[in-house]
């Protein structure tokens, strides 16, 4: 599945729920299924700045694709992190950099997330793009 297709799939999933409680329950459930991140990667080096809660993002590169480990100490943010992982994990830098448009808007989440939280997501996405850019420049991928 391409990145675009994944975003559409998630948007469809969220659209299934009529009320906010179920939508959030779904986001929280996604977070609970996120692969655990080793504690020694939960350091300041890998902390995404600009979030109300702590968010960690740890990248590794196998020459082709970027593999992320991610976590948050807040449950809802963890769910949003899990969503980002479904979209961006195990992709080539080029795939990541070619994604256009506003992630949050496409998923219909702007009304449910205030500026602050949206900025937290934006900070995460920016971090992912920066890793992709750096790796793409370094490896021509």
């Amino acid at each position, binding site marked *: 599945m391409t990145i675009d297709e994944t975003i559409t799939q998630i948007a469809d999933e969220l659209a299934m729920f009529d009320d906010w409680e179920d939508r959030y329950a779904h986001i929280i459930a996604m977070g609970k299924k996120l692969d655990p991140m080793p504690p020694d990667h939960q350091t300041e080096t890998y902390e995404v700045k600009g979030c109300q*809660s702590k968010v960690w993002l740890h990248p590794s590169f196998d020459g082709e694709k970027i593999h992320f480990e991610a976590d948050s100490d807040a*449950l809802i943010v963890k769910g949003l992190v899990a969503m980002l992982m479904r979209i961006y994990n195990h992709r080539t830098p080029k795939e990541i950099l070619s994604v256009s448009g506003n992630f949050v808007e496409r998923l219909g989440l702007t*009304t449910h997330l205030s500026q602050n939280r949206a900025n937290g997501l934006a900070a995460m996405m920016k971090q992912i793009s920066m890793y992709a850019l750096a790796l793409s420049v370094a490896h021509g991928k």
Partner: protein
Amino acid sequence: MTRDDFPILKRTVHGKPWIYLDNAATTQKPQAVIDAVADFYRLHNSNVHRGAHTVSAEATAMYEASRETVKGFLNAASTDEIIFTKGTTDSINLVAASWGAKNLKAGDVVLITEMEHHANIVPWHMICERTGAILQWVPVLDDGTLDLDMASRMLTPQVKMFAFTHASNTTGAINPVRDLCAMARRQGITTLVDGAQAVAHLPVDVQDIGCDFYVFSGHKVYGPTGIGVLYGRYDVLLNMPPYQGGGAMIHTVSKSGITYLDPPQRFETGTPHVAGAVGLRVGLRVGFQVGQGVGLREALHEVLLEDLRSIDRLNLVGRPTEHLPIYSFVVRGVHSADIGMLLDEQGIAVRVGHHCTQPLLKRFGLDATVRASFAFYNTKEEADALVAGIRKAVKMLS
């Protein structure tokens, strides 16, 4: 003045009636304040203290009438002791930079407390760095109140300034300002009281309190943003050098020298926020009513405290007996940011974070709390909704 006078309180959020419980961050405005600001721009806008025409005289009169109202609100001895600033933070920066630069030298102590808002920490830190003075902190007890024993012991002749809050924006703890100022005065120590939270809930009489400086912000007492007050004892102000330079605060400007005006004009440079001062005047009337006991709902808060305490795993941060209607709490095993999000979904506005009191939160071993803060226009139904909302959020997050 009742809840009905506040138009924004009729709003909905996410399709639900808006329950605004972030009053410690900023208060809502009654129609009268909104009208005062709009009417100023509609009918009386001109620059103040400068013009020679009728409307500028009107604007000046309105601005000075506001100063008179602030004097009455604080029971200052004279309007010359009332300086309009941008807000509490601006006021404290003014004192730290002006009074501080002149009166602090290496080895002097500036005493603050662990419960201070960053506005009453950072300016002192900055002037201490510049002058070589030392910043010291009166500790806070487990119940959120100030350690008065330690305060007394720390008020030594080495201390030149004791700056502390009238009431905490995080725990709501009210400090015994009169006693603290008296303690300081006995040692010849200058005092500054941060009244940002107190002015919306308590009567303030600066002569009775006996402080040298008292500061507050208009927007926290039903007035506009961008306007605040610095009260200073006249003889203290008279001995302070100017803070910012420019027009209006000077007597003469020439290539060979500059002479400055007396307080308060010495500290009001540039065109002031006249509309803000006009709006503040109306806001203070509301504040005065509330401070005198009109609109306080003791019963609401007794029940609210009981209800909050009955929520499993909820811990209130500090629980002083004398407190403003401000409640900070954490729920064990649940992140405060998550609770804040789910309360917002239910139309309830609270604040999540460190509330610009990082040292205080660190003292309690916390990163972030949820804070609900009430104003006189909040109702029992809203308090009940908050409790129900917290229970629901905790359930979803467990």
